[in-house]
């Protein structure tokens, strides 16, 4: 089992993702709006004709939990949804996780 985390544009609807991802064995899909900061992520806004550089950019972080064997098909699907340009610059973070049987966990404790 793995947890895949990636940051996508907030304009992308999670509903657009949930249907196809549910068909490839994704166990859980969650999203959270985050402010991303760093030297490469400053946002440009225009206020009354004046360009301003923001300290943050807004992104949506997706957390996807799925069996590790389905990683390749997930990546292929995300690449199709996000498009080639976005795929080039989107880092993906993968964390191996270990599911715990809650009943067994309680019994052990």
């Amino acid at each position, binding site marked *: *089992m*793995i947890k895949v*985390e*990636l*940051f996508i544009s907030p304009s992308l609807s999670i509903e657009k993702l949930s249907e196809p991802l549910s068909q490839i064995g994704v166990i859980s899909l969650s999203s*959270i*709006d*985050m*402010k*991303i*900061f*760093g*030297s490469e992520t400053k946002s440009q806004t225009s206020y009354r004709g004046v360009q301003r550089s923001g300290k943050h950019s807004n*992104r949506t*972080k997706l957390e996807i939990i799925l069996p*590790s*064997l389905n*990683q*390749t098909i997930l*990546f*292929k699907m*995300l*690449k199709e949804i*996000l498009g*080639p340009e*976005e*795929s*080039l*610059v*989107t*880092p*993906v*973070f*993968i*964390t*191996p*996780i*270990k599911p715990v049987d809650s009943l067994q*966990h309680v019994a*052990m*404790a």
Partner: protein
Amino acid sequence: MHKLEIHTTEEGLARLNLINRSHLVKTGYYRVDSKILSGKYGSSLPDIKIEAFISQLSVDLISLLEADDLIYQYNLTECTQTYLFESLISDAEQEKVPPAMPEISPKGHSSIETAPIDIQIKALPSGKLKLTLQSNNTTFFLCKVVGVLAQNDVLLEKAQTFPQSDHIVGIFVIPHINMEQLSYIKDQLSQELAATQMGNCGYKKFSRAAISPEELQISLDTSGSMASLKIRCNHNDIHSRFAILEAISLYDQEITISRLGGLGKKIEDTYYVKPVKDIFITNDIVNQITKHITGNK
């Protein structure tokens, strides 16, 4: 690659100055409404949660997280990074992702033949010494270091250990000692950390510190991704901590992440434990550890 999750405030975020730190791959934050029902932080705090993906952990960042009062909690998890355009991963490459356990897996007793270590010593403005140790031999790392210090009658004041890549890093604050003694301790640490077994320095004699059952409280928390032991002990002499750590190691539980603190005669430590031989820690084992430390059969 590590994922660092920090629970702090706006002020804490500004103090961390993450924006100017190297090795940050991705960093972001969001607001959380937290209600902590007990503890020193009160309730209903307008906090933020930071999530940072870092290619290389630095000792000074971890020290900062430990020292800052506005860092309510932080958590480190090992992960890997890739890009979607590299998505056509072959099956063989996929198998490179470890099947389970987010942090470094405990090493077996005889799995490591050599263990190069790095020891750095820095004098603090307070006159105390800060020892920073790195070793690729995680086996009973904390227990061995504390044992060597106890063997040399050095009282450990504060410490923390954490995994970094395939190494374990430990930061230990001790009172000032002379150069001759320091050199001797360095040699002993090098020898002890290179060993795959416990107890080459003859510190077994400390295994029964005079800790009474009333002075010791060990609580087990299994709610997180790793089980943790919270130790409260009202008896802090040179050998107390080693007695506690040795008892935990005897039950084949290894510590990679730890925070050691306390004031005066009190020990307040947190150890994140992992089984060496697939025997996960339970309250029964905790009771046996407590009895072993206090000699209360």
